[in-house]
């Protein structure tokens, strides 16, 4: 994660920094523990007073939100795409470099609605983990499904690392959905679900969201990857056509991290965050404004139809503190890669 952001900063510094100023990157590990994340945050804020901060998780982002708005001096971001956080009013100094989880589900549902022909819309089931991450988009997604006329036939909650999913599959088997949207997991138990659904003779397409879409994750699914599809707001690194930034990343990593064969989603996310941070700072500096929270917020919201160099498919607007677009990819058994299954879809 921090590789992408850190590398971006270094790269940017070799290119002269932001408006002539160098970026200082400070990384600390929090072990994904909330209290540690908070103490790292406090420590870094106290010691370095940076204008921008990239935290580690949803829990951190939420816990720190209040403090951040009180401080009014730092713009924050994290790998969380939690729907609550794309909220310029209540969480003014936070943005995300992608669509919210709800928006991702919306993209999936739009795709489903689009692909079906007849009057009977395909049935959908949601399987999500009992975490904040998992629960986040579900109610919004159900509303979207209703709007699009897609019946939601089953909703299954599991614990994140569920071992035994036989009973859940038995339930799914009875509900007979055409699509199952998995959210709130990285990998397990998705493959087991897929395998068991197949063994039970179900003809259902499994779908996932951003963190289950990385190539390494899909590779780890093994045989279960077949038929897997899902939404990703970025390009894969093997897709450098029309994506000059991806080329830059590849060139850079080829030099800096020779052992890295493939640029993971995390990395792309970090890089993109770095780009946005820099863009915001640059806009502030150009307008000769101090790097205060409100100024940075304004700069952030002024980003519109901005070109990410192809990391995202469409031009980007950060008005809503998120990037509301993404594309459906499906696993291709021949190339063993995720290949685009749709064009870029924008959320409503």
């Amino acid at each position, binding site marked *: 994660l921090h590789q992408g952001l850190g590398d971006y900063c270094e790269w940017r510094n070799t290119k002269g920094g932001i408006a002539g100023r160098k970026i200082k990157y400070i990384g600390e590990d929090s072990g994904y523990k909330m209290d540690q994340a908070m103490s790292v945050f406090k420590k870094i804020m106290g010691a370095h007073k940076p204008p921008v901060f990239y935290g580690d998780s949803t829990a951190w982002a939420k816990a720190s939100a209040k403090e951040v708005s009180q401080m009014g001096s730092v713009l924050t971001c994290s790998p969380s795409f939690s729907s609550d956080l794309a909220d310029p009013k209540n969480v003014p100094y936070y943005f995300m470099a992608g669509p919210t989880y709800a928006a991702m589900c919306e993209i999936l549902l739009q795709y489903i609605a689009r692909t079906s022909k007849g009057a009977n819309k395909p049935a959908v089931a949601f399987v999500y983990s*009992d975490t904040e991450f998992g629960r986040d988009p579900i109610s919004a997604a159900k509303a979207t499904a209703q709007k699009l006329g897609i019946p939601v036939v089953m*909703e*299954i*909650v*599991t*614990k*994140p*690392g*569920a*071992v*035994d999913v*036989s*009973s*859940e*599959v*038995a*339930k799914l*088997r*009875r509900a007979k959905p055409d699509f199952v949207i998995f959210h709130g997991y*990285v*990998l*397990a*138990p998705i*493959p*087991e679900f897929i*395998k*068991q659904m197949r*063994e*039970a003779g179900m003809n259902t397409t499994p779908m996932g969201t951003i963190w289950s879409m990385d190539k*390494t*994750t899909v590779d*780890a*699914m*093994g045989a*279960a990857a077949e038929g897997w599809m899902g939404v990703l707001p970025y390009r894969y690194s093997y897709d450098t056509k029309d994506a000059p930034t991806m080329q830059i990343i590849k060139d850079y990593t080829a030099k800096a991290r020779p052992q890295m064969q493939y640029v993971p989603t995390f990395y792309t996310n970090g890089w993109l965050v770095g780009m946005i941070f820099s863009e915001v700072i640059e806009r502030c500096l150009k307008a000769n404004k101090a790097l205060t929270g409100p100024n940075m917020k304004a700069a952030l919201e002024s980003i519109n139809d901005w070109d990410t160099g192809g990391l995202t498919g469409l031009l980007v607007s950060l008005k809503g503190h998120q990037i509301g677009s993404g594309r459906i990819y499906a696993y291709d058994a021949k190339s063993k890669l995720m290949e685009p299954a749709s064009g870029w879809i924008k959320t409503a």
Partner: protein
Amino acid sequence: MNAPFDWIALAEFALIGVFSGGLLALIALGFVLIYKGTGVINFAMGEFMMLGAYFFYTSHVMWKLPMWLSLALTLAAVAAVAALIERAILRPLAGQPVISILMATIGLASALHGVVDAVWGGNNYEMPPLLPRKAFTFGEILIPGQVVWSFILAALIITAFTLYFRYSRTGIAMRAAASDPMTAYVLGIDVRRTQRLTWMFAGVVGAVAGIVVGSMTSLSPALGGAALGVLAVIILGGLDSIAGAIVAGLIIGVIESLTAGYLGGKVRDIVPYVTVLLILLVKPYGLFGTRQIERL
């Protein structure tokens, strides 16, 4: 789900529960062995499972050794690790209060978890299926193959251990050494050996359970968490009862499956604990736990 009550679904959930209870019982067996041997709950059980799964993955998938050889190597390796742990940690702690030993196993769990994380990384790996996956169907009822086979495997292992502890001299000596090591010593029992054996057995049981669980899900450092869920089983059955582990394993299996089926996954993990609390109120030593004789 608004249709008339689906009896077949009920039967299916119950059956799935019974069969997956076998695996719970197997993991519980690992706990019970250590409890009988050392009088403590081994919180590192999940890490034994993890080690088993990772060793097996390494030898079978990465080194491409044949299945049986990988299995043998894995069990030997985990047993060796367990023996080492017994020697380095448990033996020096003999005689310390239970809570200290308990804490030591927690510390051990943390360290092992860290080691696995450091050596294999936090990534997920896909394990090849170990048990036949072909589903069993009984009319409308469908039960995943590996669930049934894991049940059979667990039943075999548990039976073997039960017979061993009841009838073999070493087994009886192990029980004796557990209940009073000093006396066992003066009767010619090599207590250190029996304690080492206890840990090695628990390691082997854990490793088998870990491989099975790993082959059913993917392999990640989260795998060890499965063991924590089994605490409900061992308490329900009684910490020191192998029979209790089996019965409670099946009960909890069915409860979990039914709650997952009818109440949803949110409560699935809570219901066993609620059940256990309620049962403890009535039977403070679980269903089959030996009542500690309290005399003045």
